């Protein structure tokens, strides 16, 4: 029975940790800003062993991944991800750290810029390059998005740790069914609009992936945001199905998937050029029918506020009535205790929030 929620809030000036008991009404900042002034692109909690991981993308001393074995009180730097000798690439920064499947207890994955996938088999102490992805001939087609060229989504199937996808900006989706030993491009979609230039065929590396999530309990369920598109995939499907009805825009980054319901998810749409919420301001859109339709929820959110939430800016807890959380570029963190119907601001005046990760603790 969960008793506590710990939020790992990454900002452009360090990592904050907030905690609440099960009612999730009163929040206390326990730690932070750790690592300031370095930006924390992402931080995550590993429910398998209680480790925490932080992507500290520092100007001084270069970027690094750190891990904590004592709930964020002390941190240790990993041995850096390192491109092999002779490579023309240099590890620049970490975009995402994903604890592995419960069946692979020491495995942790990381996505970086330049876009690459890294695997740790020692709980984040060292990292090795996934060469099968790196040697994909189609890698030559990857290009930087607005924020750089990074691998940011690592979606591991609920049942099979060898079945996983990665999402790359801008490089599309790759799927592995053998734990990363081999990869295939996985960009076939149905129902999407034609490209702006109206060519009949889209390239095999399609638009910029913004966020790809695997359902944590239902095998095969995926939810994905692409630059101007939103997709759902059900078990056994090999296409991405375009699902946007009810969304005011199809652009955005922040997304979460209900941990117990295979049909429910949340996202925050943004204006595709301004990258802030469109009229009537920030809202969280929820689907309960596998993204077929989306309903706006904004009770408790500021009216007409053109806020922004980033790629790692949204997450959920694992309570029976799921809590959903998101951070904004102006330093707010919002929480919903009723699965997204209503919201409370639980932090403000933080630095620019880059990531929110919810750890559900017993």
């Amino acid at each position: 029975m969960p008793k506590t929620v710990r939020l790992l809030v990454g900002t452009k000036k360090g990592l904050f940790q907030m905690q609440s008991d099960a009612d999730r009404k009163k929040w206390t900042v326990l730690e932070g800003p750790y690592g300031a002034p370095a930006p924390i692109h992402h931080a995550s909690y590993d429910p398998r062993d209680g480790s925490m991981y932080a992507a500290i993308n520092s100007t001084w001393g270069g970027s690094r991944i750190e891990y904590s074995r004592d709930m964020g009180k002390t941190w240790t730097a990993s041995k850096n991800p390192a491109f092999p000798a002779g490579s023309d690439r240099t590890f620049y920064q970490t975009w995402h750290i994903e604890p592995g499947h419960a069946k692979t207890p020491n495995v942790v994955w990381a996505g970086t810029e330049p876009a690459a996938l890294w695997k740790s088999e020692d709980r984040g102490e060292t990292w090795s390059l996934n060469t099968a992805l790196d040697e994909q001939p189609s890698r030559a087609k990857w290009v930087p998005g607005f924020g750089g060229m990074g691998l940011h989504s690592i979606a591991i199937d609920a049942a099979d740790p060898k079945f996983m996808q990665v999402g790359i900006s801008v490089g599309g989706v790759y799927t592995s069914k053998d734990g990363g030993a081999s990869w295939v491009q996985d960009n076939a979609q149905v129902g999407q609009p034609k490209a702006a230039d109206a060519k009949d065929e889209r390239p095999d590396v399609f638009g910029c992936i913004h966020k790809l999530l695997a359902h944590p309990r239902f095998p095969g369920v995926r939810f994905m945001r692409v630059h101007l598109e939103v997709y759902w995939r059900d078990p056994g499907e090999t296409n991405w199905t375009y699902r946007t009805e009810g969304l005011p825009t199809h652009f955005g980054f922040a997304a979460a998937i209900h941990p117990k319901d295979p049909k429910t998810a949340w996202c925050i749409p943004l204006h595709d050029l301004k990258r802030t919420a469109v009229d009537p301001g920030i809202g969280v859109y929820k689907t309960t029918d596998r993204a077929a339709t989306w309903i706006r929820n904004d009770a408790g959110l500021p009216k007409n506020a053109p806020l922004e939430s980033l790629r790692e800016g949204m997450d959920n807890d694992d309570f029976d009535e799921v809590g959903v959380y998101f951070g904004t570029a102006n330093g707010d963190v919002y929480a919903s205790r009723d699965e997204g119907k209503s919201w409370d601001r639980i932090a403000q005046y933080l630095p620019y929030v880059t990531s929110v990760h919810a750890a559900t603790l017993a």
Partner: protein
Amino acid sequence: MRRGHVRVLLHGAWRAFAGGAKEVPLDAADLREALVALTVAHPSLAERLRDEHGKLRPHLALFVNEEDARLLGWEDAKLKDGDVVHVIPALSGG
């Protein structure tokens, strides 16, 4: 090649990367050797000073006494007994 006995002073973030060490005495003929010896004394500095290809990271300022090491040949800057090497987080950006 004669090695000078020098003091390396760590400032700001570099001190934190070395677990709080302020000063490291070592023997080195030039700055390159000094940085090698520094990472032997404090291995945690190795990846903070250089990337995986051995290139010194940006936003790192090195001074020998009161001179910017860039004006002294950078890593080839010669060191002699009594020199003080400063490792400083470069102030840059906005």
